[in-house]
């Protein structure tokens, strides 16, 4: 029989099947964490620090305790005994990385505005919040540290015991021969040296976080319901942090309203609800307000980037050098230190670079909300730097930026391609994606129009921005993660269970929160087993039902979790074949499996459907000698490689030089994620990702004042774009299957975000190139654009510092020539 590891028939795979998740979400039936009714639950509210940096002098809880409905008030000192370990950081990227002990409530000192200080339990949410105002905390304020270079200089050391604000320096230098990189820069026909700032971003999932902890005081079990992306990781970490035996902890992620990385964490409020519910022997719940969410849930990005490219006379890259300064925020959360390093391999982009790569990242603590994973996590930053620098190089070389990219693309025939890093890229056709994107926008005609439109004195200027990218996702081969000091692995688990009536349950370790796994996984199983997707149920996000898994982040769910399901189906088919062979009195080798039935080769009448085998496996009346009853098989799959989706985005803008306003005229995204299970879902992932990337380019920034107060703490101040702020998106796809898995799939969740920001800013800078503008910082607000046109330094943001590393003369390059006209 030849069914093992075979690519499935594709009756359903590739169809734009509507999502089975939708009816519940569209009718209000879906249950998010805050929708759960838990009798007798106490409500938790937190007193949070109004200071970025201060010593806690005194806490007076007496007035709060006396309020109606208040059951208990706890300070950090009260709860010190509740923690068996500090809050977890699972990614100690270097052996000497500095990681300050961090507990759910601050004890002596607060290190960012929003740091939890006092926990209040009350009989209602309003009573708990009313009591927050009755707590009197006396602080001794200390200076805030909100500038990365200032943090690096240790003018104010935030964590006294560490003696420095530097958490770590991580370096990756690869050269084919000693001195190759220096020689490449010395002999280069062209070099560029650029400095970019990745502003801080707030993830802003539409559902803020929410937690309910339900203890069973007699027996010690505890169930945690949380709006999380990572119920499995959370279970392990909660058990360790609270000192509860892991088998007594169950974590459930009900319907989850988006995450974008922000719910890939272990949060103070989850641990507080668990600890307090055990202490008080009643359920404890907490619901995060949006204003809390902007301060108590992790932020993303926050880097100062220096990138240098060396190129030969044709513009082909000969060396890349990168220095990063990364903002950890006040503490290290679950994977904070690893985020910049997820981009460490991508600063050469999709280009054929010789072994001449020099990367170094220094990460510092600041008195701001901790950073961690936000959609793309390290890869949007890297892609922004290389793609912006490629445009700068195109200007130097004097060729079209698309042509420069074509000259440098890794050739299709070079795949699988082993890069300078030693990593092997699975498959790609960059030229095809770029060509398709160019066709979608009418690239040549736009360039022609640009020549006639952007004349001296023109006040509405056309710009075209190109960005080509790798997504590098599907975390990941566990051995590669080990080499990066990541504590956990990158496998995923799946179980496929054929019930006696031939309906199928799939148990997955992925934890969807908008990605449509129930629909997509049922399509995979339907094709593998030759049944209808309607006969497949997908179980997930509850550690009692799906005990094994590593959850959903980093665009890993399909290339790891989905492939695991296909492999589990293969095991089911192999076991079913033994039963079929026994019943049909044939050899397993003589069986064919198709359309949900086994048939003896050459004897079409000798056939047995999976449904009959399922019942035989259940009844166990007549199984082959030694074969276990039931038809259920599990797989834990560790992928052999990352997945390497790629593509090209092209953004077309017009910039009004009198107002600085940007209008996006066209946006085309061509993404290649290999075989698409459900193109409907793929399109949605790219649409949403593109707008999040475009929002970083044009709208969003977490702004702190010099005292460390977050000035963008609500959705009225932090500019998440509305429908009226963003353009329609034109999508194209190429399909280059991955050779590393039987489905040929790659990830797709972050591609849009990775490609978009550089495409947008490249377009804006391209529009203004004739005015001498060489860079426009993000977010490119009208004021920032206008300032760039005027040649003035753009209004500095507090988190944008001056310089770092070994390039003291590299500064933000805004203009090289005065405006030629148009600006007032």
């Amino acid at each position, binding site marked *: 029989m030849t069914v093992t590891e075979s690519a499935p028939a594709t009756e359903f795979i590739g169809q734009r099947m509507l999502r089975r998740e939708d009816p519940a979400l569209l009718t*209000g039936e879906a249950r998010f964490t*805050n929708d759960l009714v838990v009798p007798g639950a106490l409500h938790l509210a937190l007193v949070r620090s109004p200071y970025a940096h201060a010593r806690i002098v005194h806490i007076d809880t007496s007035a709060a305790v006396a309020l109606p409905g208040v059951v208990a008030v706890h300070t950090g000192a009260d709860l010190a005994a509740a923690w068996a370990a500090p809050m977890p950081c699972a990614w100690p990227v270097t052996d000497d990385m500095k990681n300050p002990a961090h507990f759910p409530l601050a004890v002596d000192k607060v290190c960012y505005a929003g740091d939890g200080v006092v926990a209040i339990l009350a009989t209602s949410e309003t009573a708990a919040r009313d009591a927050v105002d009755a707590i009197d905390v006396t602080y001794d304020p200390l200076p805030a540290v909100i500038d990365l270079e200032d943090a690096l200089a240790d003018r104010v050391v935030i964590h006294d015991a560490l003696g420095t604000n530097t958490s770590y320096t991580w370096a990756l230098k690869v050269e084919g021969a000693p001195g190759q990189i220096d020689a490449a820069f010395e002999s280069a026909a062209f070099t560029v040296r650029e400095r970019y700032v990745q502003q801080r971003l707030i993830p*802003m*999932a539409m559902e803020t976080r929410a937690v309910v902890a339900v203890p069973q005081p007699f027996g010690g079990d505890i169930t945690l319901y949380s709006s999380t992306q990572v119920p499995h990781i959370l279970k392990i970490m909660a058990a360790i942090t609270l000192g509860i035996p892991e088998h007594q902890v169950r974590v459930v992620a009900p319907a989850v309203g988006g995450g974008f990385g922000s719910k890939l964490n272990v949060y103070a409020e989850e641990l507080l609800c668990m600890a307090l519910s055990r202490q008080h022997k009643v359920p404890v719940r907490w619901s995060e307000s949006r204003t809390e969410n902007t301060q108590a849930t992790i932020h993303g990005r926050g880097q100062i980037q220096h990138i240098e490219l060396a190129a030969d006379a044709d513009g082909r890259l000969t060396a890349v050098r990168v220095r990063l300064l990364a903002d950890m925020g006040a503490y290290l959360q679950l994977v904070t230190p690893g985020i910049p390093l997820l981009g460490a391999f991508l600063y050469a982009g999709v280009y054929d670079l010789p072994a001449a790569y020099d990367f170094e990242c220094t990460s510092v603590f600041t008195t701001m909300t901790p950073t961690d994973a936000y959609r793309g996590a390290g890869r949007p930053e890297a892609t922004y730097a290389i793609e912006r620098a490629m445009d700068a190089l195109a200007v130097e070389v004097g060729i079209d930026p698309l042509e420069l990219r074509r000259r440098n693309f890794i050739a299709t025939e070079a795949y699988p391609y082993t890069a300078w890093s030693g990593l092997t890229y699975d498959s790609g056709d960059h030229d095809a994606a770029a060509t398709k994107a160019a066709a979608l926008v009418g690239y040549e005609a736009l360039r022609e129009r640009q020549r006639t439109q952007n004349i001296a004195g023109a006040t509405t200027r056309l710009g075209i921005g190109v960005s080509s990218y790798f997504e590098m996702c599907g975390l990941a081969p566990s051995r590669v993660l080990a080499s990066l000091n990541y504590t956990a692995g990158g496998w995923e688990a799946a179980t496929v269970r054929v019930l006696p009536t031939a309906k199928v349950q799939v148990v997955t370790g992925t934890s969807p929160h908008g990605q449509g796994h129930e629909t997509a996984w049922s399509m995979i199983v339907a094709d593998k087993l030759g049944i209808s997707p309607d006969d497949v149920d997908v179980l997930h996000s509850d550690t009692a039902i799906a005990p094994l898994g590593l959850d959903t982040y980093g665009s890993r769910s399909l290339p790891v979790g989905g492939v695991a399901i296909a492999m589990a189906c293969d095991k089911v088919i192999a076991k079913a074949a033994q039963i079929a062979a026994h019943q049909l009195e044939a050899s397993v080798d003589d069986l064919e499996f198709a359309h949900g039935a086994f048939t003896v080769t050459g004897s079409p009448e000798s056939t047995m459907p999976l449904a009959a085998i399922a019942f035989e496996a259940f009844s166990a009346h007549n199984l082959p000698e030694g074969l276990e009853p039931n038809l259920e098989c599990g797989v834990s799959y560790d992928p052999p490689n990352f997945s390497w989706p790629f593509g090209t985005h092209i953004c077309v803008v017009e910039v009004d030089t009198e107002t600085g306003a940007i209008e996006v005229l066209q946006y085309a995204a061509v993404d290649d994620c290999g075989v698409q299970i459900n193109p409907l879902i793929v399109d949605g992932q790219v*649409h949403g990702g593109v707008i999040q990337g475009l929002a970083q380019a044009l709208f969003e920034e977490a702004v702190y004042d010099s005292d460390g107060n977050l000035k963008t703490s609500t*959705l009225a101040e932090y500019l998440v774009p*509305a*429908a*009226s702020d963003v353009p329609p998106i034109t999508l194209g796809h190429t399909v280059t299957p991955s050779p590393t898995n039987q489905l040929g799939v790659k990830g797709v969740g972050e591609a849009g975000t990775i490609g978009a920001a550089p495409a947008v800013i490249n377009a804006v800078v391209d529009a203004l190139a004739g005015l001498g503008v060489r860079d426009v910082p993000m977010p490119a607000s009208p004021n920032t654009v206008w300032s760039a046109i005027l040649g003035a330094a753009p209004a500095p943001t507090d988190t944008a510092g001056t310089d770092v590393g070994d390039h003291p003369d590299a500064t933000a390059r805004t203009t090289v020539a005065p405006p030629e006209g148009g600006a007032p």
Partner: protein
Amino acid sequence: MEISVTVNGTEHQHDVEPRTLLVHYIRDTVGLTGTNVGCDTTSCGACTVHLGGESVKSCTILAVQADGADITTIEGLATDGVLHPMQRAFMENHGLQCGYCTPGMVMAATSFLEENPHPTDREVRIGLEGNLCRCTGYHNIVQAVLAAADA
């Protein structure tokens, strides 16, 4: 204060604290949790319901202000187990991912189409600018509303 409201055709009478927001009344007292809360500044629109036939952000009025009103929430849109054409259009056009903004978005969209039954792409975008979505990039939401308008 005593209030009397009709929610999805059913009359309710309750004694509510005067500061109670309509959204909390709908969720916590009436027990209809389809209406979500996404912010505290009337910015996101996740809590949009129909009050007297018009879309309102239910976080922005007090329950006592709704005394005597006829309210429709997302739970009241589908009838006899059949999705409302707008719900159907959202499903067919993949106008939702995580689904958290969806109830408010659908309620805003149905109200918008009553005001403007045959909108352009741009008019839909402006009409829904009070409702934020973080997943879809709005592209398919706009397609869904345009499809519902043609239905």
